[in-house]
């Protein structure tokens, strides 16, 4: 198993004043992996992810994403990643098609590519009829699937998903994870934060953050064995109980 490492962090740290949100985390993510990033609210997941995406400056430590340095080559990283935030952030006053067109254009894709890719996504999500409908009139579950499709529209190496399934029903979540698997199968690395423990089971490897530090990192199977737990839920509870911080 000598696969390329697409994310490498070394003592990556972020402080806000006297508060250390992310405390010297070290981990590596391999190409094509579905990497779960778990933690209670306020554990520092989102902050860590924002540093990797180039939305936030690290205070110290190193990080390479898609082979680029987060300090200096931040804009090159952006060409190679996709991002979906926990707040739904497609333009609600644009149509489904227009949103895809916009993001395709921003990433410098050709018109032919945009056209063909739009067609294939519309078919895949089975929303051909809604192509010219304003995004704000779609149900939440559809919006989230659409947001994911847009995040990987430009075929990035890595896609970052920040609590992508918040607030949707179990069926929609299931469908959403199918999309993630399909994407991973094409070689996209998926970096996903969540606090649904059943979702953690779908990941290849899982890291659990407590109070800004990574407390555990392994495959779900190994983690359950190490902590002698029946489910990921139990693993999480055992670790999270140590937390001092609460809530965002």
């Amino acid at each position, binding site marked *: 198993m000598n696969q390329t490492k697409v994310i490498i962090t070394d003592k990556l740290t972020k402080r806000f004043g006297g508060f250390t949100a992310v405390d010297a985390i070290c981990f590596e993510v391999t190409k094509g992996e579905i990497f779960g990033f778990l933690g209670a609210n306020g554990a520092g997941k989102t902050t860590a992810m924002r540093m990797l995406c*180039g939305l936030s400056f690290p205070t110290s430590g190193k990080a390479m994403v898609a082979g680029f340095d987060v300090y200096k080559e931040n804009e090159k990283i952006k*060409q190679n990643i996709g991002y979906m*935030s926990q707040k739904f952030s497609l333009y609600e006053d644009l149509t489904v098609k*227009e949103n895809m067109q916009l993001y395709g254009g*921003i990433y410098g894709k050709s018109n032919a590519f945009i056209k063909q890719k739009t067609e294939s996504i519309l078919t895949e999500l089975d929303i051909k009829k809604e192509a010219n409908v304003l995004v704000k009139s779609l149900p939440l579950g559809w919006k989230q699937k659409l947001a994911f499709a847009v995040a990987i529209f430009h075929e990035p190496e890595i896609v970052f998903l920040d609590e992508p399934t918040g607030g949707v029903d179990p069926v929609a979540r299931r469908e959403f994870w199918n999309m993630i698997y399909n994407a991973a199968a094409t070689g996209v690395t998926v970096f996903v934060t969540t606090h649904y423990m059943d979702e953690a089971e779908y990941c290849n490897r899982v890291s659990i953050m407590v109070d800004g530090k990574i407390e555990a990192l392994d495959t779900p199977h190994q983690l359950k064995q190490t902590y002698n737990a029946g489910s990921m839920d139990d693993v999480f509870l055992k670790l999270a109980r140590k937390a001092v911080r609460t809530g965002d």
Partner: protein
Amino acid sequence: MRTLKFLLQKEFRQIFRDPAIIRLIFIMPVIQLMILPWAADYEIKNIQLAVVDLDHSSYSQKLISKITSSKYFQLAHYSSSYESALEEVEHDRADLILQIPPSFEKELVKEDKAQLFVAGNAINGVKANLGAAYIRNIINDFNQSIRMEWIQLPRFSAQTQIEVTSSNWFNPLMNYKYFMVPGILVILLTMIGANLTAINIVREKEIGTIEQINVTPVKKIQFILGKLIPFWIIGLFVLTLGLLIARLIYGIIPAGSFFTIYAFAALYLLAILGLGLLVSTYAATQQQAMLISFFLMMVFILLGGLYTSIDSMPRWAQIFTKFNPVSYFIEVMRMVVLKGSGFADIKYHMLTMLGFALVFNGWAVFSYRKRS
């Protein structure tokens, strides 16, 4: 370049889908230009005069009828008590009091001189001042005619006479609307431009869409240009609409060239939109952005020379107006529209505005952060 095209497409789609913005762009300027110049009529006429006549002589009657027959004055009150006249002023029913003392006629005839008293309600200084000046002129005329009656006109005047003639250029009909309409047009452009852009970026911040843009390789300058260009075009459109209304309703045809107006307006819009963007990069919420831009607008507009002369301001305030883009545009609009000034006349204004545009936009690009 291609990225910019996509960003522009997005902005235009969003703008034209928002009914509030459409109303702001199309309806507001039309209605306001139709109404405001009528409200902003500062031409002093119909000065309400209260006369306190303690003389009741034929001269006092003559004087009163001479004053009230002029187009400036209306007799609002006539009595023999100063107190009752003052009460009229207190209730804003009179602006000016003329008091004719007892034995006015007798003194004038017997002692060669007489006294009149005028009191103006100076809360509105302009009106009081102009009213007093007008009434003085009329009294002077009256004085002159009385003199004529008593002294037979001499062949050769022993008294030195300087005849003063005056002419009014550029607006010989003294139409106040010619003065106000170009100024109001500037205010409209400013409010639409600055407010719309100020809110725009903040709105994306509040909704969260800006984050999605920030993880893309879009450059800062592209993003800012994408915001700037649509409102720049809208601004020029509103200007065209405004000039059309000025022509159709008020019959104002610029004495100078349209090219000069548009060239300056193009620069001005860049500057004012840049200011709006600057506000929006600093504000965290739409509420903050609106508050800041309202505040700035109020200061800029009131100190922009729309209706109070900048020359009359104290020195420090005049220096302040040098940093007020609105005052430049108001001045230029009036110069070009009324006096026909050309590029050579406004080159200093053009250069200054270019400076504003560069500073505001440069600052906005600089302070807009994709990363926190």
